[in-house]
């Protein structure tokens, strides 16, 4: 370091003369975390909307008439399984096994697709019986909140598939490791949001 050559009576430096290293991606994890926090605010707004409008049925159907808790329990299980299988993918990555990472990412994607399939089935069923977003303020806020979460899962799955291609092309390079860790945060974050959805929307809705 050049600092060693500075004499004791050198003028006081108030600024950094040697620029320290900024390795590529050294702040990606924190940056992605801050993105997730801003995403958290989107969901907070949608939760607040649902909390305010969730009781306005406009003489239409109430949560008790619409929600099938067995289906929601199955959906929750799918997302929870996909969380731990993503964990296995991260563990395989730490051991440097590309094949293992890809297999567990594929399993995670399948659970994610199962979750989406069940959610779309539920939405289809609701729309078929006339409980469309236009029906009442409750249904508008319900479809917006749960739909936004579903949209996040959809993009998560697209990212998963993209990552599997990147892994097969480049292997476990530093950039891919970083991507796996970012998607890990994204995926587990979606599971955290889902805890709020199934508790606050479905379980509390049926209780109301």
């Amino acid at each position, binding site marked *: *370091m050049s600092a060693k050559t500075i004499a004791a009576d050198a003028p006081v430096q108030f600024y950094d003369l040697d620029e320290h*290293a900024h390795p590529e991606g050294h702040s990606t994890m924190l940056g992605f975390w801050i993105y997730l926090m801003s995403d958290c605010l989107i969901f907070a707004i949608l939760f607040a909307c649902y909390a305010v409008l969730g009781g306005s*049925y406009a003489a239409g159907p109430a949560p008790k008439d619409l929600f099938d808790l*067995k289906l929601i329990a199955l959906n*929750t299980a799918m997302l929870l399984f996909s969380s731990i299988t993503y*964990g296995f993918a991260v563990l395989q990555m730490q051991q440097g096994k590309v094949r293992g990472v890809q297999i567990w990412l594929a399993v995670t994607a399948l659970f994610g697709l199962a979750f989406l399939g069940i959610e779309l089935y539920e939405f289809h069923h609701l729309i078929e019986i006339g409980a469309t977003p236009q029906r009442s303020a409750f249904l508008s806020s319900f479809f917006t909140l749960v739909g936004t979460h579903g949209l996040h899962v959809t993009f998560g799955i697209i990212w998963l598939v993209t990552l599997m291609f990147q892994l097969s092309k480049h292997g476990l390079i530093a950039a891919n490791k*970083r991507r796996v860790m970012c998607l890990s945060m994204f995926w587990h974050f979606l599971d955290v949001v889902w805890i709020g959805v199934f508790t606050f929307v479905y379980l509390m809705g049926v209780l109301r």
Partner: protein
Amino acid sequence: MSRDPHATAHAHDGPHEIEMPHASMRDYVIGFVLSVILTAIPFWLVMTMPLSAGATGAIIMGFAVVQIVVHMVFFLHMTPKAEGGWSLTSLIFTVIVVVIMLAGSLWVMHHLNTNMMPMPHEPTSQTASTTTGQVP
């Protein structure tokens, strides 16, 4: 008054590899088992209703908060030291904003509702149960 130049120079000499949270099988298994328990109990409480609605609501809200913390610790590897404390700082900031927004919205909108003059179509809400014929 001047700082030791060696100290500032060596502060940047740390390893240049990207720091990643270290995950372990133990963490994931503990997190998963706790999540399953914390999910199954609320569903069971609501589906079989062994308690009153008020008590059930309070319990499932409590379970949700605990499960969110479990996910943060065991799946998202949140520690006070992660990223030099900046992850936790931004999380605390977000939680404060979220709490203000949720509590504030509910409070303001509740007061608006109670202070609102009765609307002409108010009586229709009485017949809500009879007009839901389209629902199974």
